[in-house]
């Protein structure tokens, strides 16, 4: 049986691995989005007390400053010592919390790129701060955030492959199983895997760019 027969036979395993990678990606991006947006809003519009701002800053610095592999080890082996956590859950947690740190800074810079006059005009018309953020600042910040956010999306797709190191059976590990069972053919198997990551990446980015174009404001960004 040559490698192409093996690939055809085992392709469902690769697809299953891709499915695991996609679920991991979706989960970590959602955690990162919700937490990252909260951190951004608290940093920009929350009380300026050190009691709140310092822990936020510390969180953001630590999660952006430590390699993801180390984070995966810490979360998996650290937590499984006290609580029986699956490798998959540990990966979602470690990568989601790290993505939150990155996304918070994407959103912060997007919010800050909205001219100060927009908030001033909204407040001068009688809007509360919360209403001004929701109806005036957020819709403009969201447009600024999509571009940088595609970067985060692309990075995270690729980094799901690192969950391999704590034993999550995602695409890269499935590929490794095939290689081990067929004694070689490293290049061809990984080329197929690379193609799968690439297609997923392009598909996701195309959707995001289409969304960006849909939201573009006439006379301003197009």
């Amino acid at each position, binding site marked *: 049986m040559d490698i192409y027969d093996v690939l055809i036979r085992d392709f469902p395993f690769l697809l299953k691995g891709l499915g695991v990678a996609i679920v991991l990606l979706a989960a970590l991006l959602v955690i990162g989005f919700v937490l990252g947006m909260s951190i951004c809003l608290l940093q920009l519009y929350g009380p300026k007390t050190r009691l709140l701002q310092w822990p936020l800053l510390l969180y953001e610095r630590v999660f952006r400053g430590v390699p993801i592999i180390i984070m995966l080890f810490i979360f998996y082996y650290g937590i499984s010592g006290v609580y029986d956590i699956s490798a998959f859950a540990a990966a979602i947690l470690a990568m989601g919390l790290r993505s939150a740190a990155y996304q918070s800074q994407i959103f912060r810079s997007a919010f800050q790129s909205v001219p100060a006059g927009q908030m*001033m*005009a*909204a*407040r*001068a018309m*009688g809007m509360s701060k919360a209403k001004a953020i929701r109806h005036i600042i957020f819709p403009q910040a969201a447009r600024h955030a999509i571009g940088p956010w595609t970067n985060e999306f692309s990075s995270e797709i690729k980094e799901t492959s690192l969950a391999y190191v704590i034993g999550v059976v995602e695409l890269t590990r499935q590929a490794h199983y095939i290689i081990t069972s067929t004694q070689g053919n490293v290049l061809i198997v990984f080329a197929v895997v690379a193609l799968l990551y690439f297609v997923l990446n392009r598909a996701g980015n195309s959707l995001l760019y289409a969304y960006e174009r849909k939201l573009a404001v006439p006379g*301003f960004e197009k």
Partner: protein
Amino acid sequence: MTDDLILDVQGVTKSYDGLEVLKGIGFGLRKGETKVLIGPSGSGKSTLLRCINYLTRPDAGRIFLSGEEVREGNIDAMRARMGFVFQDFNLFSHLTVLDNVRICQIKVSGIDRETATQRAQQELARVGLGDKAAAYPAELSGGQQQRVSIARALAMDPDVLLFDEPTSALDPELTNEVIRVMQQLARDGMTMVVVTHEMSFARQAADELIFMENGHIVEQGPPGNLFSHAASERTRAFLNVIAEHG
């Protein structure tokens, strides 16, 4: 009598880093009156205007709108009753002209969408932009943007309109189209406080000029009086310079 005053500003002071920009300013405004604040740059005109609706918070002094005191606690409600027109327009750039004029009616005043739309179209027609409802701000000239921002303020049915150098960012041609709208508002009996260097507007539309310098009101009175025989030497000098260059 303070009863018939729409706007009553009393003893407003404001300092930045020890520099006293406003040194106890007071003036009143009756319904339908237009007062124009003039004075050299740095005299405190814009700061005064921003203190009136707390965009800049005054250090001391009191402000009453139709007899009700403006406070930190009621500021959103009070601002909704004071239109503010900025030098650089500050239209909401992600919204169409129509949405710019109706969003605060809907989100602040709680007016239903249909009524807000009608009112918005009415105010856009009033500033001569009835045909621009679907455009976005970046597709308009500066003069058109400023007229939209006036319509946006008018749609809130304000007790008073505050203009902060509304034509300073515009070339002379665009300045004229904005000034014409403001003159019409003055004739229609709108109550307005206008910071401007447009002396033609001041002369024609103002019921009273207030000349400020160094955080003080130097002199105030009907434009005819001030232009022909201002009491203060400083006011005369300022008006002469403006007359030569304006």
